[in-house]
């Protein structure tokens, strides 16, 4: 077991070293365009003073929430259905496997064609990028349910809706949550890319605009840092799901206690 001092000191130390190295390299290279950590930090302060920052963050989070929630609401039931019924799996799996490896970035032109330069385009892209990890995880989770659990349930005459509620859903939940977590990470990656092209607000737009409008690389890096921090917060929030009593059994951290 690591002590709590170690848990705080180690990451703080490594991160400080990274920032120091960054600072040193910029000074050593003599670059006047690429910002030092101090420039990036003052960039963040400047963005906050400017007033648009909060709007941009809200815009990005809104797009991610809508696209991601749609993917959860459609992906989980669809995955349960396709995973449970062998015939549905034979019918749908090849199509899923063909669509899945297409990068969401490749869909950007299509999204603009269909939805124009509106919120709908990035929402559509986020939906596309999140639904495949959720679908894949849910299908695999259903197919991995151990036969003993299904047999035990049959033995006690648990069928139909009760089987779904008492066995299928809880047995698959840990793996589904892992898929959801993966999907949210990808959604946050994709929203930035989508906003660089398809709209004119949001954190992705902030970055591309800072570059195009005046080579303000301090603001570019400031935007990148904010994206990283918000992504971290999102992941921490979704990780809370793994600590629910009903699913803790499915995660390593619980078994290792």
């Amino acid at each position: 077991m690591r002590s709590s001092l170690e848990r705080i000191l180690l990451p703080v130390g490594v991160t400080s070293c990274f920032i120091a190295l960054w600072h040193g390299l910029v000074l050593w290279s003599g670059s006047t365009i690429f910002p030092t950590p101090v420039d990036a930090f003052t960039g963040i302060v400047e963005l906050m003073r400017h007033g648009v920052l909060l709007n941009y963050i809200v815009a990005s989070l809104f797009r991610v929430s809508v696209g991601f929630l749609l993917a959860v609401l459609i992906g989980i039931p669809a995955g349960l259905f396709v995973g449970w019924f062998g015939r549905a799996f034979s019918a749908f799996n090849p199509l899923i496997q063909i669509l899945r490896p297409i990068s969401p970035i490749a869909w950007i032109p299509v999204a603009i064609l269909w939805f124009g330069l509106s919120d709908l385009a990035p929402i559509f892209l986020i939906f596309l990028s999140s639904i495949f990890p959720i679908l894949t995880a849910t299908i695999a989770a259903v197919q991995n349910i151990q036969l003993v659990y299904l047999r035990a349930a049959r033995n006690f005459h648990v069928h139909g809706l009760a089987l779904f509620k008492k066995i299928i859903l809880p047995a698959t939940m840990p793996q589904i949550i892992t898929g959801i977590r993966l999907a949210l990470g990808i959604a946050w990656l994709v929203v930035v890319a989508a906003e660089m092209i398809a709209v004119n607000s949001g954190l992705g737009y902030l970055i591309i605009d800072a570059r195009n409008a005046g080579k303000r690389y301090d603001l570019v890096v400031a935007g990148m840092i904010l994206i990283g921090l918000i992504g971290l917060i999102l992941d921490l929030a979704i990780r809370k799901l793994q600590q629910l009593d009903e699913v803790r059994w499915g995660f390593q951290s619980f078994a290792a206690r």
Partner: protein
Amino acid sequence: MEGTSPPKILLRDLSMTFPGAMNGVPLPVFERVNLRVEEGEFVCIVGPSGCGKTTLLNVIAGFLKTTGGHVLIDGEEVLVPDHRRIFIFQECGVFPWLRVDENVGFGILHSPKENRRRIIRHYVEMVGLTGFEKAYPSELSGGMKQRVEIARALAANPDVLFMDEPFGALDYFTRLRMRAELVSIWEREKKTILFVTHDVEEAMQLADRVVVMSRRPATIRTIIEITLPRPRVLDAQEYIDMRNGIFEAMGLDHSGLGSASDAKKSSD
């Protein structure tokens, strides 16, 4: 135990062949098994690993369809599983997402609430898990999990228990204790028990009768009746002779097999 009353379980010419299990060649697992089990009897089925004991028990329980012959329980043909006959699985069928008390009460979901709570408390206590009602299975040892499964089965008040090597994954001493507990539960609850094991000594400690199966395709080699009172001491000469007879019937070399296989598996 005479055959005047109808038998609890009757196997008539039971055969099972898996169709093309490997490279399209049908795999005959057991052939022409005939067996009569009386109400309240404790019958052990022993045989070498892979001879088809699990398959046989699955067919009798109704999880698998037979390819020949009949299974009759209380005179009725078995086609599907039934909650009056509960299966205890080799791989442990306790649900990891439910707490101990929820697992134990799983077979009586439709009982009135107060009644259900009383039954859960009774069987949790019987298997010695009082105080662990709110624990999750992953917080329990292998032996405790196995006891949860036994309590879950008993709580549903079945009249037959099918047990498939239930103590196989436990360490040596836990296994000995679980056997003794099972015998005392059986003496109290008067269930008919069909207990599968590859451990001949385990069978001799538990059973009224030991059914000895051969290698695959398995047939019943012999059935040995053990009338001596429990708890049984296994180093008496008559047991050693009986054990060697069983090894011979299974077609195994019996030089020191029993204790060696016990010692090998004592991990945890």
